[in-house]
């Protein structure tokens, strides 16, 4: 059975949109973090779909890069989250607004 590429793209767009909405509206820093992962993986899905549809490896290579970046980001991000929870005893992103004018 051959699933058309547009199906994958629609799914990817929905996942990305969910990630965006979650990023903007969620307050818990962990959830925000997860929404970023959601967006990254939506993009990965689109890459894989295109790579398969066009029978080329370029998209897959990009996916590997994205996964590596996501892993690094998770490592750094979780470290920041731990520091935040220690210092502020809260995971609410609205209370982290020191870097401003």
């Amino acid at each position, binding site marked *: 059975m051959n699933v058309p590429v547009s199906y994958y793209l629609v799914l990817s767009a929905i996942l990305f949109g969910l990630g965006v909405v979650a990023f903007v509206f969620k307050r818990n820093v962990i959830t925000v973090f997860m929404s970023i992962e959601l967006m990254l993986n939506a993009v990965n899905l689109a890459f894989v779909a295109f790579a398969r549809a066009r029978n080329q490896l370029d998209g897959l290579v990009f996916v590997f890069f994205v996964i590596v970046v996501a892993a690094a980001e998770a490592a750094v991000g979780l470290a920041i989250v731990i520091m935040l929870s220690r210092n502020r005893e809260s995971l609410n992103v609205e209370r*982290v607004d*020191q870097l*401003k004018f």
Partner: protein
Amino acid sequence: MPILNHLWIILALPLAGSAVNGLFGKNWSKSAVNSVAIGSVSLAFLSVAELVREFSHLAADQIPYVGNYFTWMTAGTFRVDFALQVDQLTVVMLLTVSFVGMLIHIYSTGYMAHEGGYYRFFSYLNLFMFFMLTLVLAANLIVMFVGWEGVGLCSYLLIGFWFLKKSAADAGKKAFITTRIGDFGFTVGILLIFAVFQSVDFTTIFKSVAATPISEGVLTTICILLFTGAIGKSAQLPLYVWLPDAMEGPTPVSALIHAATMVTAGVYMVARMNPLFSRAPVAMLIVAIVGAITAFYSATIGLTQTDIKKVLAYSTVSQLGYMFLACGVGAYAAGIFHLMTHAFFKGLLFLCAGSVIHAMGGEQDMMKMGGLRKKIPITYWTMLIATLAIAGIPGFAGFFSKDEILEAAQSGPHANLVLWLLGVVGALLTSFYMFRLVFLTFFGKPRYDEHHVHVHESPFNMTVPLMILAFLSIFGGWFAAPKLIGGIDHFEKFLDPVFSMYAPATAVVSVRVVDPNLLPPGYSAPTPGMDLLHALTGWPVIVGILGLLVAWWFYVKSPDTPKRLAKSLHGLYTLIFHKYYVDEIYAALIVRPLLWISTNVLWHVVDERVIDGTVNGVAAAARESGGELRKIQSGNMRSYAAWVIIGAVGFAVLLFAVLGMR
């Protein structure tokens, strides 16, 4: 032809002297500075002498000899070469400038011996020589303008030499700004010449004006604009006011720049541009009128001044008026002749005045001198010779040149009896105030404190230039002497090619024509003996002697006459003593309104409100908008994300809109 092929050497020598003294002279001994300054000027004079020798071997069709060194600038059809030229007029000017300049350099080593800034003085003086020689050697108007402005700069620097003295600094500024007004006219004149003739080159302009007639109105405009420059530079009415103030400078400077050379640049320029002036009778008339009125007017001011240098300053203005009168009546050669003799006797008068001031320990007021005849005999005798020369006593240089000018004003092709009368009365006044100066300074009883002022004759390096110039003040005019006994005027004959080559018919006084059948109308054939008698009993001589006698009566025979006369003519005396209040009138009419406009409009409105307002306004706008815009940086991560999303969506919409339009 080593110099003729390398004319630039004449310019390079004083320039190098100026540079060496200016850059390294500060810590040198005075004798080292002297050697550089006098060495460079003397070498320049020797080069000029060699140039004259080579010039005399040139064939008539090789004159003017032009040395073209490089193209200075080109823009479209506008092209200026750095070119120098030599013709008879240049030769006369070069000899006068370099020789008098050299003598005054030597004199300065004595006069300035005890002054600070010694190296600076000589550096400026050499720089002046460079620019003055550039001015007279120039082959086109732009190079001439460089010299013209350069001498103005040096004049400014040297008037304000004692710049810590406010009056000297102010006088320097006054000289620079006043001449600048004239220079504006000169600049516009040059531009107009280029617009009309498509060239700034002398020979090209003259050939073109001689070949194709040009509307007289345009020529008159050009000539009047050029003459405006001459009015400023040569201190004629109404821009003469800077010259008397220029006496704030050291006396050798007054002698070199403000008597012998720079102030005559205007006369030289008018004579140089004679093919244009000769074709613009209205402009000629204006030149003659301005010259004659200035000659008379400033002579009257000279009558009442008590500062020895101020008398000479007004006298210079007056004599420059005679030179312009000569040019204005078409007797260019007589004007240049008077320029040369004036350089000798007026240079000498200033140097003598310097010697007197030196002897009196800095005193310049003639009312505090008197009886110096026996104490400084060399100064006395040389000054007497110069005075006889300027008064036009027969046998002295000034007699020949002044006589020629007044003769041209009386009977030349542009004769004008009113102008002649002004000239003759001016000559009477000249003779009177000059002998007044001599009698007040050297005769009578001393009016200074003899216990405190130690009067002493000046050293050799000052008196030798005096004696050389005294010699020239007698014999410098004898080139013209053969004319009086039926021969030819060698000076006019020498200069004749310059003034007749491109001249329109019958415009220029030419005395070369001895054949009675070829004389232009209005001339009578010269008769030997009669001419001599005529010249010796002419009005210029009579008034010259009359002035001497009146001055002798007033200041030697019965010294209380002037005071009584001043009392009975109180109003007139006060008016003249205050120089007709011209400085005050200029201050009220021009300087103060200008100052008011500058302060209240240009400064407080244009500068503070408009210019500062614009700059500050732009800064304030940036600060204010930045202050508002920075609130976007809320620190809230989610709002940043929202901006990114809005941006991305906006960009996507735009992209689709553009693609959709394709």
